[in-house]
């Protein structure tokens, strides 16, 4: 009985160890790793980030982002506060972390030793007629005004967080990637006296769900501005074709009109050509 008891506790401990080991292994296996592929882009401001899970990509983001952050600076008189603007772009060498899910995803981009953090949250929604779409639900930007490379002489330096409120952007049908070369701007309200932080992204291609193959975007879905540009490009061609058609029809009608009304007496031509002999 003692031997049995000992073996039971021993085996129980062993079992627990094995279970923990399996759990740890599964955590290691299921770990989502962020990859920075910015070296592949041709635009020096454009960054490419990917989050991989289970050996395949589950979230890919490709964009060029510009930040416009207002912060307070002490004026020369030492009393008043002036608002300055710091403008900078998302660097290509940032670190990525991300979480993928079937209905919710998130990507976290940090740089300068976690002095700046950009988090973008995606979720899905069912529109009427059963169409599923995904969209950005929230953008959060954390910045540290004591970081001297972009903020000079900030008053009361410290970390501030800027969030979006009621954001509905980049609405795309599920299973497709969002493409927009035009610029899109988001305004975030900062914890620093409710100042407005502006984030502009352009040359965008994003897909947070349902990526079919590794590192390859699914079918692209163009934003409205790009679609309009496409229309503006094709419209001159259509109009030019209509113009050519009108000319051809007019000439043909005139030709046949002349043929039908051709019987007029030939009048004597004038002889003023003698001047040029």
């Amino acid at each position: 009985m003692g031997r049995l008891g000992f073996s039971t506790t021993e085996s129980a401990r062993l079992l627990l160890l094995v279970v923990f080991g399996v759990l740890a292994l599964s955590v290691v296996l299921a770990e989502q790793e962020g990859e920075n592929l910015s070296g592949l882009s041709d635009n020096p401001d454009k960054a490419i980030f990917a989050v991989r899970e289970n050996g395949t990509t589950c979230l890919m983001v490709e964009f060029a982002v510009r930040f416009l952050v207002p912060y307070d600076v002490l004026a020369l008189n030492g009393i008043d506060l002036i608002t300055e603007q710091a403008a900078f772009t998302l660097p290509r060498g940032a670190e990525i972390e991300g979480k993928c899910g079937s209905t919710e995803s998130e990507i976290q981009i940090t740089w300068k030793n976690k002095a700046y953090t950009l988090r973008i949250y995606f979720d899905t929604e069912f529109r009427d007629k059963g169409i599923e779409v995904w969209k950005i639900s929230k953008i959060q930007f954390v910045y540290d005004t004591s970081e001297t490379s972009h903020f000079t002489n900030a008053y009361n330096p410290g970390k501030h967080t800027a969030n979006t409120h009621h954001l509905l952007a980049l609405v795309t049908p599920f299973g497709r990637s969002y493409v927009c070369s035009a610029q899109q701007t988001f305004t975030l309200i900062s914890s620093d006296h409710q100042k407005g932080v502006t984030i502009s992204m352009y040359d965008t291609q994003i897909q947070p769900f349902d990526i079919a193959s590794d590192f390859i975007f699914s079918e692209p879905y163009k934003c409205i501005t790009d679609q309009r540009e496409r229309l503006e490009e094709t419209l001159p061609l259509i109009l030019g074709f209509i113009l050519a058609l009108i000319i051809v029809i007019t000439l043909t009608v005139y030709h046949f009109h002349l043929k039908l009304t051709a019987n007029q007496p030939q009048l004597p031509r004038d002889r003023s050509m003698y001047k040029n002999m």
Partner: protein
Amino acid sequence: MATLIRSKLSNKLSNAATTVSNKSQAKVSGMFARMGFQAATDEEGLGFAACDDLDYDHRQGMQMDILTTDEMGGEGSGEALDGDSHYQRDGTGPPNSASKDGDLVNELTEAKPKITAWEAGWNVTNAIQGMFVLGLPYAILHGGYLGLFLIIFAAVVCCYTGKILIACLYEEDEDGQLVRVRDSYVDIANACCAPRFPSLGGHVVNVAQIIELVMTCILYVVVSGNLMYNSFPNMPISQKSWAIIATIALLPCAFLRSLKAVSKFSLLCTIAHFVINVLVIAYCLSRARDWAWDKVKFYIDVKKFPISIGIIVFSYTSQIFLPSLEGNMQKPSEFHCMMNWTHIAACILKGLFALVAYLTWADATKEVITDNLPPTIRAVVNIFLVAKALLSYPLPFFAAVEVLEKSFFQDGGRAIFPDCYRGDGRIKPWGLSLRCILVVFTLLMAVFVPHFALLMGLTGSLTGAGLCFLLPSLFHLRLLWRKLLWHQVFFDVAIFVIGGICSISGFIHSMEGLVEAFRYNIQE
């Protein structure tokens, strides 16, 4: 007795004076003849004019024969009577001067209709009151009172050069009457270079005319596209698409056959221009309380004023159209009166518009005055401006077609290609297709040439100044040297010099502007 002696003395003195002046004149003209200048009247031209009259009568007679054999109608005799009454040589010349250069042979029932002096006036107004009136307040901003003076002075000078250009078309015959021996600008140029280079002058003037007319047509397409694009920014139609739509609207211009139809368009264009003027002036008058009378300058802004000079001076260019207008008038004797009144009206309207608009906005006056207007009035003015641009297109287009057809499409081996017109005066289908090609060409240039306004300034300062100031004074001096009074010679030389200065300064500034625009584009 004393009076008799006095009268005899005065007679002798006057005779002596005339013989002396004749001799000196003969010496001078002999000297000029040796240098290659024309020393005598164009006897040959006079002879040809007489032949043309006889030919016209002969053809009228033959037409009557055909009519009577075909229709046995009574109208034939009526035509013959008309033919006789048209044969006048009191400065009006034979009526169908258009037929001299191998133009349309008249149909029996539809002779090429003549235009009245009013219609010629609408055409000239179309040419001199163009789109550039919108830039005049900006010119006053940089030029002050000098700009206003320049508007009046340019009107006077251009009226004078127009009249001397038409004077070059006529020669005095042995009866002392003026006969119209030349028909177009090209003929005048050829006559001037007659002894040594019989056709060089004609080629130069031809090229200059074609460039100027085609550039004007392209400008109207560019302007209408631009105005429509700025009026409807929310529609997805780009400026190129608007230019194509404007060209579709202008395609019927290919069917224009006579100046009478063009005159109707010019009349509508003048009405649209008048409405624009009234709208803007009325709005400015409504703000009369805030007028800045003290802001009108006496000094000029040396850097920016030369461009304004270009805008003011070259907006009065109508000389290209004058020979054919005068040739198609029913009563060419009314030409001088028409020129005076159109230029006076243009001068008053432009001066009033520029001054009033400048006083309303003073230093805030923009380059194009419609940018200063409030949005509602701007929308209405824009619509009328587009209508004006589209209605102004037929005149330079018709003139360009005429010039091209005369130089390249004549029968009898005179030009490269055969005639565009059939025996009964109607245009052949391939002639019509050439006109359509010209319309499409203006569209393509409007769409694909960048910085068109600057390019137009460049060519305008060369061809425009040449055709409006330099060439008329030169030809006038050359052809009518023997009959000119000294003050006329002085005017001609002064206009030539001033025109040369304006042309060179305009050329330099346009080149600078173009170079800077291209450098900016490349840097972008």
